[in-house]
């Protein structure tokens, strides 16, 4: 994780600041009070502080009334870039946005959600706001202390512990990160082997693998096949068993049906015998009945003949009666006919009179008038209808004209809209071209930037190479200087020291303590040496000179002589002499070589030489480092050539857009620098919009064409109707007049018709009373005449019927007479008697045996049919059984079952095998988790190693507890608390710990004005250490001592160029901090050689497309 960019506004004294960071070492330098710590505070607040927190008040600048605003971009991992924007205070706001390319960000969370999401991403052990019991102030945890330590307490990490974290996310993250550092190699090997076997069978989510390499796959396939075979076999066995049972059932049914048929056949035979007997009796009975019938028939014929003769006689009598009745009826008709003829003549005469003729004439005249009025009425109605048609036609014309007008207007509007949309599309096409240009420019810029970067890297590498040479040269010079000092080796110095000590000891043995008193008689001068300390003095006569010495006193009195008093015996003196000689003979040569005369001088020379050698080593180290930095120069050169070629190619592509002579670079520089993907995204969006609009335009064109067609049709229709109106028989004025008068004329005609109808009624009522009376008489007589005639006709008919009946009866009587004459009743009686005797002689039939022969036959046939049917079924079933069943399928089923059992056993073994691997893997992981709770172990080694290097082995181990709480340091095998160390050493231990934690987490670390107490040598070493760490993580150093850090391989940021305080003038913007993130994106700036046009706004687009859609719908 590394910070890409920080933007601050009105925050903790900073008016505005924009800092662009890079991976690796970032050195942000500037004088005190510029706001370095404020920037760190801003980073801390961005990542940790809810915008509504009262703690944010501390960020507020009391000099201005503005809300502190911060924006931070950091890359969590490749292609996971986050931007956090916060505004603290009364109008607090927070946004968390995500991007893959660092250009296009999409909102991931806002306001209160931001803190929770952010802490989920960071996993620093911080609780999101809202929980109870949270501490007030800036949230902090072990990791925040390590990565974002405050300047005021740079050693806080030494007192921090994971135990104090608000939640376990930080511990979990560190555990995860540190586990890898402490795993035992054997454990790793076992875990890897177990994991490998688990991976063979299971996916990462613990599901069984199903791919071609899965161990379950073949087994599962075999199992499925076996189960399928087993199912089929089982089914076959079941079928076989069913078939076998079916065969047995059918066999039983066949036997039952055969028995039934046999029984029915027996019963049928008995019944048939009985039936035969009964048939014979019935035959005899029938013959008897025939004879009896013939006898009865003959007797009946005789009786009928007698009856018929009586009927003939009665009919003759009735015919005679009816003859008389008919004669009377004919007479009555003859009587009434003359009276009816007279009445009819009387009526005819009355109707032929003059009065009646006049009435009929008037009636005819009235009728004629009535017809005339009717005709007039019809004529008028026809005229009115014509006029109304014309009136309707006129109205239709008016309506059509209105419709044509409306359609014309709508069509014009649509055409205008269409033109507008096409113009807009052209504009968008132009914009697409602009974007294409911009994209080409972006490519060019990217290529150029890359070329530039490569060039810078190339130059830097060259600088490093030069510097490496210079440093090597300096190192050589230092070594030469060190050699020129001719300082004895440390061992020689030690030897000299030992000789000196021996000498001193030997001399000390002579130190027995001396007290010398001397009283001169005369005044004089003397040189007195007490234990080698020589002093001169004058003395007076009789002055007592008293001296105390350890080993020797020597008086050298001018003009008198010398006195030497020494302590110790001769052996001790000799030993001292010898030691002194040894010392002298050895030391003098060394002193002579080194040009000094004391041991201190020699030690100083040695130290000087050591320092020079140490410096030469450091220079060698630096030279090697610089040399390593310059490695890859050739590759860089090649890359630079390629990048330049790319830039040239892309520039040529951009240049094609412009007229000759136009300044491509000026244009490109004037552009807002956007990423290619953002432009491509915009192009895609715009192209989509254009495509959608084109689609709408096409729809609109279809609508317009349809409107035009309809309009043309309506206009033709209108012209035709106008012509029709113009050429009609009635002029415009006439039909209107006619319509106006039509009602009055209609009324008049109605009145005339009513008058004629009344007249006709009156004429018809004028019939005379006489005619009416004659007519009544005629009616009565006619009715009476008809009645008499009917009576006569009826009597005649009855008589005819009686005569016919008589004739018929007479015929029948004749026939019967003849029949009876031919009958032999006696013979018939004899025959009857004979047959009766025969019937009586026949035996009776067994009625119980005779049930129903047909039923018995049916039963027998049915039983036979059932038996046959069952036999057929039996054969079929036996055939089926022979095909599907038997031992064969049972064996197959047993085989299939055995196969399944075997596969189940194999599956169990496989499950056991891989389940055991899984269990082993999980158990290893659990044990490791438990074992890894002592997180400190992982950090002890790197921290201690660096500490030992830093202190030249003086401090050999830093103790770090299970919760990463550093407790102390070892010195010479003894533990010391940090308080016992110097401030500088404490700072250094804290730094090492923080760096190690950041490296474990692969995270940035911010060092705010740390190491203020370190000496230059350690500073140099630490600078090297930071450089090494920056190879792996981002290290941000805030310092007011840039010289200690700036060596050329870091990203240096002069904060005076980036930070504007409220009390200072705005600084000129640098390349790195040109665009504050929250600022709105600016529009493309075209060059003078390109056509300018008004950019359509989003609202314009919305309106136009809405209109297009609505118009299309309309």
């Amino acid at each position, binding site marked *: 994780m590394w910070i890409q960019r920080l933007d601050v506004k009105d925050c903790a004294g900073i008016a505005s600041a924009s800092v662009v960071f890079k991976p690796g070492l970032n050195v942000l330098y500037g004088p005190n009070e510029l706001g370095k710590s404020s920037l760190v505070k801003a980073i801390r607040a961005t990542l940790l502080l809810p915008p509504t927190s009262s703690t944010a008040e501390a960020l507020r600048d009391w000099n201005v009334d503005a809300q502190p605003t911060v924006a931070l971009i950091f890359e969590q991992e490749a292609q996971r870039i986050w931007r956090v924007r916060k505004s603290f205070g009364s109008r607090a706001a927070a946004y968390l946005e995500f991007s893959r390319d660092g250009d296009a960000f999409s909102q991931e969370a806002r306001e209160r959600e931001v803190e929770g999401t952010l802490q989920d991403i960071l996993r620093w052990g911080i609780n999101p706001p809202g929980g109870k019991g949270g501490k007030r102030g800036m949230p902090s945890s072990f990791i925040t202390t390590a990565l974002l330590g405050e300047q005021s307490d740079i050693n806080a990490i030494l007192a921090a512990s994971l135990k104090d974290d608000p939640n376990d996310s930080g511990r979990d993250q560190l555990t995860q990160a540190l586990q890898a550092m402490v795993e035992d190699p054997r454990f790793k090997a*076992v875990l890897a082997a*177990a994991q490998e076997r688990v991976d063979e069978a299971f996916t990462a989510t613990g599901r069984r693998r199903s791919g071609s390499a899965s161990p379950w796959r073949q087994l599962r396939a075999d199992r499925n096949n076996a189960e399928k075979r087993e199912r089929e076999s089982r089914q076959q066995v079941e079928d076989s068993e069913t078939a076998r049972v079916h065969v047995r059932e059918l066999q039983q049914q066949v036997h039952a049906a055969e028995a039934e048929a046999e029984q029915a056949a027996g019963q049928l035979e008995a019944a048939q015998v009985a039936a035969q007997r009964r048939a014979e009796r019935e035959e005899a009975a029938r013959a008897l009945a025939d004879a009896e019938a013939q006898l009865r028939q003959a007797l009946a014929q005789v009786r009928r003949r007698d009856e018929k003769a009586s009927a003939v006689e009665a009919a003759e009598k009735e015919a005679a009666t009816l003859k008389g009745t008919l004669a009377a009826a004919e007479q009555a008709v003859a009587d009434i006919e003359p009276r009816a003829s007279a009445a009819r003549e009387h009526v005819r005469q009355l109707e032929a009179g003059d009065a009646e003729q006049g009435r009929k004439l008037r009636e005819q005249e009235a009728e004629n008038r009535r017809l005339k009025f009717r005709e007039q009425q019809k004529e008028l109605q026809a005229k009115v209808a014509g006029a109304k048609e014309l009136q309707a036609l006129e109205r239709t014309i008016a309506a059509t004209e209105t419709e044509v007008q409306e359609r014309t207007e709508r069509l014009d509007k649509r055409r205008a809209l269409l033109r507008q949309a096409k113009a807009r599309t052209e504009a968008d096409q132009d914009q697409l071209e602009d974007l294409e240009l911009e994209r080409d420019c972006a490519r060019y810029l990217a290529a150029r930037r890359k070329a530039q970067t490569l060039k810078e890297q190339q130059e830097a590498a060259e600088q490093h190479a030069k510097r490496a040479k210079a440093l090597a040269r300096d190192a050589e010079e230092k070594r030469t200087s060190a050699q020129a000092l001719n300082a004895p080796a440390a061992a020689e110095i030690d030897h000299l020291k030992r000789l000196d000590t021996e000498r001193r000891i030997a001399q000390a043995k002579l130190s027995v303590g001396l007290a010398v008193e001397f009283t001169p008689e005369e005044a004089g001068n003397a040189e007195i040496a007490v234990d080698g300390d020589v002093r001169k003095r004058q003395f007076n006569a009789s002055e007592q000179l008293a001296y105390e010495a350890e080993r020797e006193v020597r008086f050298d009195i001018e003009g008198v002589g010398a006195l030497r008093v020494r302590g110790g015996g001769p052996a001790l003196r000799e030993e001292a002499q010898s030691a002194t000689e040894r010392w002298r003979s050895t030391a003098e040569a060394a002193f002579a070589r080194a040009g000094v005369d004391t041991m201190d001088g020699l030690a100083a020379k040695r130290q000087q030489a050591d320092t020079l050698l140490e410096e030469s080593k450091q220079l060698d180290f630096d030279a090697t480092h610089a040399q390593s930095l310059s490695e890859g120069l050739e590759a860089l050169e090649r890359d630079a050539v390629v990048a330049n070629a790319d830039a040239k190619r892309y520039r040529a592509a951009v240049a094609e857009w412009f007229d000759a002579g136009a300044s491509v670079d000026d244009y490109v520089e004037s552009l807002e620098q956007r990423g290619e993907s953002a432009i491509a995204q915009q192009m895609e969006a715009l192209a989509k919009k254009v495509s959608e609009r084109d689609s709408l335009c096409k729809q609109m064109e279809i609508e317009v064409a349809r409107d035009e067609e309809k309009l043309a049709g309506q206009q033709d229709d209108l012209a035709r109707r106008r012509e029709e109106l113009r050429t009609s028989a009635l002029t415009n004025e006439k039909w209107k007049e006619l319509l106006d008068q039509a009602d009055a004329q209609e009324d008049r005609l109605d009145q005339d018709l009513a008058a004629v109808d009344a007249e006709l009624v009156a004429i018809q009522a004028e019939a005379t009373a006489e005619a009416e009376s004659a007519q009544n008489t005629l009616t009565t007589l006619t009715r009476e005449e008809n009645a008499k005639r009917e009576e006569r006709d009826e009597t005649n008919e009855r008589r005819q019927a009686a005569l016919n009946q008589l004739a018929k009866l007479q015929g029948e009587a004749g026939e019967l007479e003849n029949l009876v004459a031919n009958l032999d009743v006696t013979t018939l009686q004899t025959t009857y008697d004979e047959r009766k005797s025969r019937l009586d002689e026949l035996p009776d039939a067994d009625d119980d045996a005779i049930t129903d022969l047909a039923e018995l036959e049916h039963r027998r046939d049915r039983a036979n049919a059932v038996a046959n049917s069952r036999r057929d079924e039996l054969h079929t079933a036996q055939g089926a059984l022979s095909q599907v069943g038997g*031992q064969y399928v049972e064996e197959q089923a047993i085989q299939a079952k055995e196969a399944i059992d075997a596969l189940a*056993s194999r599956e169990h073994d496989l499950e*056991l095998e891989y389940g055991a691997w899984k269990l082993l893997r999980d158990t*290893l992981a659990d044990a490791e988790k438990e074992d890894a709770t002592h997180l400190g172990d992982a950090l002890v080694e790197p921290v201690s190693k660096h500490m030992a290097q830093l202190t030249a082995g003086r401090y050999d181990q830093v103790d770090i507890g299970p919760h990463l709480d550093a407790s102390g340091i070892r010195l010479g095998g003894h533990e010391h608390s940090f308080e016992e160390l110097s401030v500088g050493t404490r700072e250094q231990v804290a730094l090492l710990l923080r760096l190690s934690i950041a490296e474990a987490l692969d995270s940035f670390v911010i060092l705010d004005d740390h190491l203020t107490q370190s000496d230059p040598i350690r500073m140099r070493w630490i600078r090297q250490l930071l450089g090494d760490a920056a190879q792996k993580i981002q290290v941000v150093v805030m310092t007011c001592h840039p010289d200690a850090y700036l060596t050329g391989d870091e990203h240096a940021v002069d904060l005076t160029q980036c930070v504007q305080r409220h009390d200072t003038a705005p600084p000129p913007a640098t390349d790195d901090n040109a665009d504050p993130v929250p600022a709105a994106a600016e529009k493309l700036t075209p060059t003078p050689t390109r056509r300018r046009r008004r950019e359509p706004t989003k609202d314009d687009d919305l309106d136009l497309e809405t209109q297009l859609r609505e118009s299309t719908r309309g």
Partner: protein
Amino acid sequence: MRTKAEVANAIDENEVALTLLHTADWHLGRRFPAFEAEQEKRLTRARLEVIGRILDVAESRNVDAVLCAGDLFDRPAPEKEWWEGVLHEFQRRRWQRPVVLLPGNHDPLTQQSVYNAAHPFRTGLPEYVHVVDEKHWQLPLGDNAVVVASPCESQAGDTKLVESLPKREEGDTRIRIGLVHGQTFDIDGHQTNFPIARGSAAERGLDYLAIGDTHAFREVEPKAHAPTVYPGAPEATNFGEKDTGNVAVVFFPLDRRRRPLVRREVVGAWHWREATCHSIAELRTLASEDLRKTVLRLTLDMALPMQEFDEAERLLAELRGSLATTPRVGVLSEHRQGLRLATDAPIDFNAELPDVLRATAERLQAQARSDAPGQAEMAERALYHLYRLVRRDAA
């Protein structure tokens, strides 16, 4: 194995009128799905290999005819490789002695079967090989003997095929050999296919009734004058089958009053065996045997300390074989659910374990002592995996 002359001597030096080789139940093409694919191949191949040995015996005994009493194929229409294998065995022999193939209930005479007249197997058979393809089928063996046979025409049925064999006609003095496929037992509730009643041989006037179906060698009526014989399967088809791996060589004496002599000849190569080991010593002993032609169903029932458990696994691996090593057992079916680790015994990992591995081992040991079903077994196995990995690492 005695020669024809020796046998002749054995039957009171009467001359032998006729010698037959009677076989059945080859079950070619039979699958063994309970075994793994490679093992199954070995067993199915073995069924074909035995045919050659059967015919070799016929040659060496100089029999007059070979009677194959059904179920030569495991199903009516086996794959080509099976019938081609048989065809090859017949075609490569320039025989005159007849070989009679009888369709059984596994390979009945149907439209689809290999015995159908149009089937390439049938058309490819040399002239000396005859197929019983109708009821009342007869084949004279010279002037003095005749084979009468009736085929199965379905997989199951209660047809008494032996009753369709013609009875001895009056004056027919030839040696009459009946050939049918079916079952001579009738157990209530058990399907009996193509039943063969006792006394059928005598009832039909036969001197020998050659039958097939049962996989064990069996003389059905040992005291009857006319033997009724199942030769059994020449190679066993499953565990538990006894008296398999034989053919019957039948000697008919010239003295017709004497009963024909029936002798078993061993032709099978494979031995099906079930074994249970209760200790590592038993397993060691078993593993030292020659088991290359053995189908072994091995059940392990023992709890072993880790070192012996490891040895057991190693012995099993040797028996089982691998891609790199030849299996010591022809076909192995392991039932190892009873092989358990004695969890109370200390485990010598032969290495100074790191704490985390020691903790892992302790946890697994605790789980191995659990009563939860399956958990203990799995923990034992995991413990063994750990043991192997640590030992390997240490090595």
